[in-house]
């Protein structure tokens, strides 16, 4: 499994895509591949962001590692993702979770937190 440089093609931060698969297994849990990029002690701190449902399809990955530099809040994570190809799918009703809890935009985010960007919910 190789990593592609999935930069947005603009001046935004470098972003690495883990998974080039645009399609999810129908109804399946999105695969989260075991990571190696952040295990190198010399690598800069990253924030690992999970994407779900239509967002994973539109951004063509279920996990993105954002350089942590300059990313302070859940809203910052969302702003970075919106600058990526397919990021226009993340509309005003996009939900953010930090460490398994719904997180308002101002919620602080740190390297090592489990961050998720989620479409409007449709359970039940």
């Amino acid at each position, binding site marked *: 499994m190789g990593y592609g440089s999935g930069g947005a093609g603009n001046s935004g931060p470098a972003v690495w895509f883990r998974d080039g698969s645009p399609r999810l297994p129908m109804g399946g849990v999105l695969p989260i591949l075991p990571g190696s990029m952040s295990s190198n002690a010399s690598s800069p701190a990253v924030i690992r962001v999970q994407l779900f449902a239509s967002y994973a399809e539109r951004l063509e990955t279920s996990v993105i590692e954002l350089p942590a530099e300059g990313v302070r809040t859940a809203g910052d994570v969302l702003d970075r993702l919106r600058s990526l190809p397919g990021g226009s799918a993340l509309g005003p009703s996009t939900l953010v979770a930090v460490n*398994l809890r719904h997180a308002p935009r101002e919620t602080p985010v740190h390297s090592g937190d489990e961050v998720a960007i989620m479409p409007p919910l449709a359970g039940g």
Partner: protein
Amino acid sequence: MYLTRSPILLNTLIAEVESPDRGGIATFLGTVRNHHQGREVRSLSYSAYDAMAESVCGEIVAEAAARWPVRVALQHRLGDLAIGDVAVAIAVAGGHRDEAFAACRYVIEELKRRVPIWKREMFADGTTEWVNQGVANGEARREGVASSEERGGAVAR
């Protein structure tokens, strides 16, 4: 575990909550319906942010049990479902019906509001569409809303 990929059996949930001192048991089933905004639905697929969904379901069940003197069982199914399949089931047992109805309603409303689960509908015309996400595969593109058919002893819209 609140999420399951196997068919949901309501009797199993009832057995989890019933006891001799609980004389009122309210249940709710959400099932897959065959239409959405005038289009014929063939099947549904549910996916989830599993870890968070489990966590939030646990919070909701605990909240209900703290607010009313009840015992609560909850399951939500993931994966491919056919028309009529049970997508979500809730059983609440209390000493009397008032708290059972109230807690059952609380759990389904909070689940729909807070639990990270998503639904994709497969239509008779071969297109598929994420519900509520404004994204379609194929030419159809509509905004939708959660649409599982709802029936049960506790909650009616």
